[in-house]
């Protein structure tokens, strides 16, 4: 009897702590973004609510916030799509066909996923300069596809390996080729897995910072994390209200994704980390 009361109390305080731990920074971000003065907490200025910060950053032509957001979304969507697609092709061959290199490819790719980005970015900068891709979407799309491949391959492998090979045999007898089998049978059945993969790589690409910092120069290709990180005021004082409003704008798409696709994201994360 006493033990259950203690456990209930522990659980309750745990939940309160968990919520405070996760959400306080967001409450603070929202509050500052909506207030006239960022220093309302520790000075004589009272908290005055205003939408001015949002109006300023969304309408000012020198801020480019929405351009950064658009760049981020286009680059991340493209990278997530191709990463998932290329990994599916490879995973199909690895789970269905016998060929030399079957085991080596996923293991080598798993090792690749642990390469620190700093050991890639220096030379990548040279490569992109040589290709003339600095400050274009390509400079980020191709590296992001590559960064996503190991995770994508391992998740797709775990989905494809659960499907019976009888499916393929039947389709082969009906005269379908391998690509058609993947496209018309295997991928549609594994759609939840492909969607998890797509979501995760979208989020990872949206989050990426070092490549975006080094391979872009301005609003033509700069992504929103870099845009907000480098956002400074013109007059020496840090415009906290603008920055927090920008952070809120960048956070909204992510919060929506998680709210609607929580199940897929969690599935992908656990497949990728534990099986991989």
């Amino acid at each position, binding site marked *: 009897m006493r033990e259950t009361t203690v456990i209930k109390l522990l659980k309750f305080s*745990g939940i309160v702590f968990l919520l405070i731990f996760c959400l306080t920074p967001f409450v*603070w*971000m929202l509050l500052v973004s909506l207030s006239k003065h960022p220093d309302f907490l520790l000075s004589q200025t009272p908290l005055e609510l205003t939408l001015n910060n949002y109006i300023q950053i969304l309408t000012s032509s020198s801020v480019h916030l929405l351009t950064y957001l658009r760049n981020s979304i286009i680059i991340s969507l493209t990278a997530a799509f191709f990463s998932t697609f290329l990994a599916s092709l490879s995973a199909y061959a690895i789970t269905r066909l*016998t*060929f030399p290199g079957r085991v080596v490819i996923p293991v080598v790719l798993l090792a690749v996923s642990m390469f620190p*980005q700093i050991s890639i970015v220096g030379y990548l900068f040279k*490569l992109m300069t040589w290709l003339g891709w600095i400050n274009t979407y390509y400079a980020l799309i*191709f590296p992001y596809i590559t960064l996503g491949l190991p995770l994508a391959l391992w998740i797709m492998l775990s989905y494809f390996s659960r499907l019976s090979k009888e499916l393929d045999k039947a389709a082969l007898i009906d005269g379908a080729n391998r690509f058609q089998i993947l496209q018309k049978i295997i991928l549609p059945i594994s759609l939840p897995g492909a969607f998890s993969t797509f979501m995760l790589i979208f989020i990872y690409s949206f989050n990426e910072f*070092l490549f975006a910092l080094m391979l872009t120069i301005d609003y033509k290709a700069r992504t929103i994390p870099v845009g907000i990180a480098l956002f400074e005021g013109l007059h020496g004082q840090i415009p906290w209200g603008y920055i927090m409003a920008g952070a809120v704008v960048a956070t909204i798409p992510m919060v929506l994704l998680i709210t609607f696709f929580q199940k897929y*994201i969690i599935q992908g994360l656990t497949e990728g980390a534990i099986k991989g």
Partner: protein
Amino acid sequence: MQLNKIEFNKKEIRDAYLFNAPLILIALIFIFLPVIGTLITSFFRDVTFLPGKFIGLENYKRLIGDSHFWQSVEFTLIFVIVSVSLELFFGVIFALLLNETIPGRGFMRVAILIPWAIPVAISARVWQLIYNYDFGVFNYFVLKLGISNQPVSWLGTTAGAFFSIVISDVWKTTPFMTIIILAGLSTISNDLYKQAMIDGTNFLQRFFRITLPLLKPVLVVALLFRTIDAIRIFDLVYVLTGGGPGGSTTPLSLYAYDYLVSGDFGYGSAASVIVFLLAALLAILYIKFGQFKEVVK
């Protein structure tokens, strides 16, 4: 029949390579080429406006002789140990909580994923404001609760900056730990707990005798996964402290980055190779333990 079979296999092999070609090609160009390029560059004097020159291990000798490099190594290692341990600790607690049937579990799972999904560079700016000397949330509590009668310089002192980075990193990555550990918890059969309860064990005994031992493989994998990730920390520090004060919070990645962007490519590459080697060492461990788990299964 025999002939037919060989024919079939040949076609299968051709198909297999066709299916794998795009993945292999992209990985070769955008990962392997740059990594090898970085390794080669590290043996060269590669400075803007000067002709490149092979100098052997000179860059590495310079690294070993630089006290700032050692400061970076020290910071990186201490940071990894402190933050990953805290993440593991909180991850286990949160996972145990979310594994229970509690009201609002769905909402909590969303709440816990948000810090993980927001770009670090963006949440780091929010933390920067939270640690603000004049009007940040931390100093508000420090003053109101009477912990000190003066505001604390969170980002301006070595210890303050270190703990600020650790707190923000723990906030950002504990959700990942929680999700992984939660998946591990869900594989433990409820019957074990029921039996243990009949045997009259208490909550702590059940945790240490059942949960922890069965969770060990998942914990090892999560731990190594996070460690490899933490060793390459860059964006959080870049935004939050810029490596300061006095270079005391410069992780190895930032140390290398500073040289790469200032035009000393050879030296920056050598520093990058060190980060690579550290991660590789851990990666070998990770793959070993990962397979170990598969075999057990």
